[in-house]
């Protein structure tokens, strides 16, 4: 029943556990790994109708101006593969908390960036990643965002720009756990650029 059932319920990753009504309609889902006690309490919540997407949609009428609530709703929509709904809520988190007092805005931006990447919109992927770098330099996701900016150029085929940014990253954050990877990425891009050059002049 694997792929057809997965497609029927729009399951996008593993592990995903669905809690269904007796007639097979979805109550809600659990995406990713959780420890047993948390997992069981989520299933119990769902069976009782608590913390479900449906109940959160209802609660949005009264809590729609609360960044923490809206952030949870955005994650929920994201887990359900409902991209348009997720995006608009992540965007609202940014509007509701421009100074990132909740610490949720950089998360929202990274999520938005990844959704753009999934849709192969690398300009959007870069725009959201760059916003983390520019607006929230103290964020624990700033380094990741910088790597994503470099990656966006690579995915667009702008290898020289990507290489330059990976090199900048390695120079700027030599002690970062990803510095070696960034250097390696820059080296392999350098080799690829050289190959393409040789290919052009050779032909």
């Amino acid at each position, binding site marked *: 029943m*694997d792929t057809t059932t997965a497609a029927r319920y729009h399951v996008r990753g593993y592990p995903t556990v669905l809690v*269904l009504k*007796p007639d097979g309609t979805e109550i809600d889902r659990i995406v990713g790994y959780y420890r047993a006690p948390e997992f069981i309490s989520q299933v119990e919540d769902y*069976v009782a109708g608590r913390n479900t997407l449906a109940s959160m949609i209802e609660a949005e009428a009264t809590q729609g101006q609360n960044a923490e609530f809206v952030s949870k709703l955005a994650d929920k929509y994201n887990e359900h593969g409902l991209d348009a709904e997720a995006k608009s809520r992540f965007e609202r988190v940014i509007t509701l908390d421009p100074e990132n007092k909740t610490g949720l805005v950089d998360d929202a931006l990274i999520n938005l960036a990844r959704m753009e990447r999934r849709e192969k919109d690398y300009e959007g992927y870069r725009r959201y990643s760059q916003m983390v770098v520019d607006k929230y330099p103290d964020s624990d996701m700033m380094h990741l965002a910088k790597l994503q900016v470099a990656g966006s150029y690579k995915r667009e085929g702008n290898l020289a720009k990507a290489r330059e940014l990976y090199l900048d990253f390695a120079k700027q954050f030599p002690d970062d756990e990803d510095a070696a990877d960034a250097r390696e990425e820059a080296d392999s891009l350098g080799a690829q650029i050289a190959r393409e050059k040789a290919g052009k002049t050779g032909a």
Partner: protein
Amino acid sequence: MNASNRGVGGWMAGAAALVLLAGGCSKGAKEEGHAWKTSYDAALADAGKAKRPIILDFYTDW
């Protein structure tokens, strides 16, 4: 750091369904001898008869 390096080929993916019986998740399953089913339709039929919810697990073995 790069999740896209992983290939998809060769990974086993599957799904299994469990009808939740009265008395809680794991307990009900154990004591009444009910087990995970790999047939979606069979699980749905059981759940309909028992009027109980279902847990549907999409998993992989990688």
